[in-house]
C-alpha cells in the first residue's frame, strides 16, 4: 500500500508495504524545495536518536545534492522534477537524489581545495558530500546520486 501526501506541487509517497519503508519525495526544481526535502528527512530521523553532528552532515549533504539536481541538473526549470528517495537499512540512511537533466562527469569536477580553486565561488558541494557521507556514488550518466550515512 502506498500513501501519497501532496503539499503544494510536492508529492510525498510512502510505500508501507516494503519491509524497509521507502519514502519518495518529488519536488519541482526551485530552490524553495531544498529545505522541504531536508526537513522531511530529518523529521523522519527523530525516533532514531541520531547525534547532532550526524544530523548536520545528513542535512548538509541532502541540501547540496538537491541543490545540484535543481540548479545544475534541471537548470532550475520548474517543470522538471527532482526525485528524492530515502530509506533506513542496517543502521544507515540511504538517500537517492535524481534529476531529469543530462547528467555530468563526476571525474571532470575540479578539486576545490587546490590553491588555484580556493578563491572560487562554487564547486564545494560534491566535495563536501564525498567527505561527510560514508558513501556517495553517482550513476553512470551522473543524474542520480546515492548517499549512505551510518546513523550514530
Amino acid at each position, binding site marked *: 500500500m502506498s500513501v501519497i501526501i501532496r503539499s503544494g506541487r510536492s508529492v510525498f509517497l510512502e510505500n508501507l508495504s516494503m519491509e524497509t519503508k521507502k519514502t519518495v519525495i518529488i519536488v519541482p526544481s526551485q*530552490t524553495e524545495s*531544498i*529545505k522541504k526535502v531536508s526537513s522531511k528527512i530529518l523529521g523522519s530521523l527523530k525516533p532514531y536518536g541520531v547525534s*547532532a*553532528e550526524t544530523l*548536520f552532515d545528513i*542535512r*548538509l549533504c541532502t*541540501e*547540496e545534492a538537491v*541543490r545540484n539536481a535543481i540548479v545544475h541538473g534541471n537548470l532550475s526549470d520548474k517543470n522538471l522534477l527532482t526525485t528524492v528517495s530515502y530509506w533506513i537499512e542496517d543502521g544507515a540512511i540511504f538517500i537517492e537524489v535524481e534529476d531529469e537533466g543530462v547528467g555530468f562527469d563526476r571525474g571532470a569536477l575540479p578539486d*576545490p*581545495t587546490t590553491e588555484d580553486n*580556493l*578563491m*572560487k*565561488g*562554487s564547486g*564545494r*558541494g560534491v*566535495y*563536501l558530500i564525498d*567527505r*561527510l557521507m560514508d558513501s556517495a556514488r553517482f550513476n553512470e550518466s551522473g543524474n542520480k546520486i546515492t548517499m549512505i550515512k551510518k546513523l550514530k
Partner: protein
Amino acid sequence: MAVKFEEKFGLTVCHIEGEVDITSSPDIKKAFDKLISKKTPKIVINLSRVSYVDSSGLATLVEILKNMRTYGGKMRLANLSPKIKSLFEITKLEKLFEIMASEEEALSNF
C-alpha cells in the same frame, strides 16, 4: 537570519545570527556590499550564533573576502562552532581565512 554591525576599538564587528546558506546568502552579501563600497578596512565576523553553513554560505564568505582584498581590506572570523570550523578544515578554506577562537582574540593586534 540577522546581520548586525558594531564598531569596537575602531574596528567593525559583524554578528551573524542564524544560518549562512543558500537562503540567507543573498541578504548577507547585500549587507556586506555596503561596507565594501565604503572600503571598510578591517572586519571581524563573529559566528557564535551561526548554527549552519552550506557550500553557498562558504562561497559567500569567500566572495566577501575577495571583494575586501581588492582594496586591501582584511577580514577575520571568530567563534566558529567545532562543526562549522571542521567545514573550513575539510575544504581547506582555513588557509584562506584568519580563524580566531574568540572575538577578543580577533580584535587584538588586528
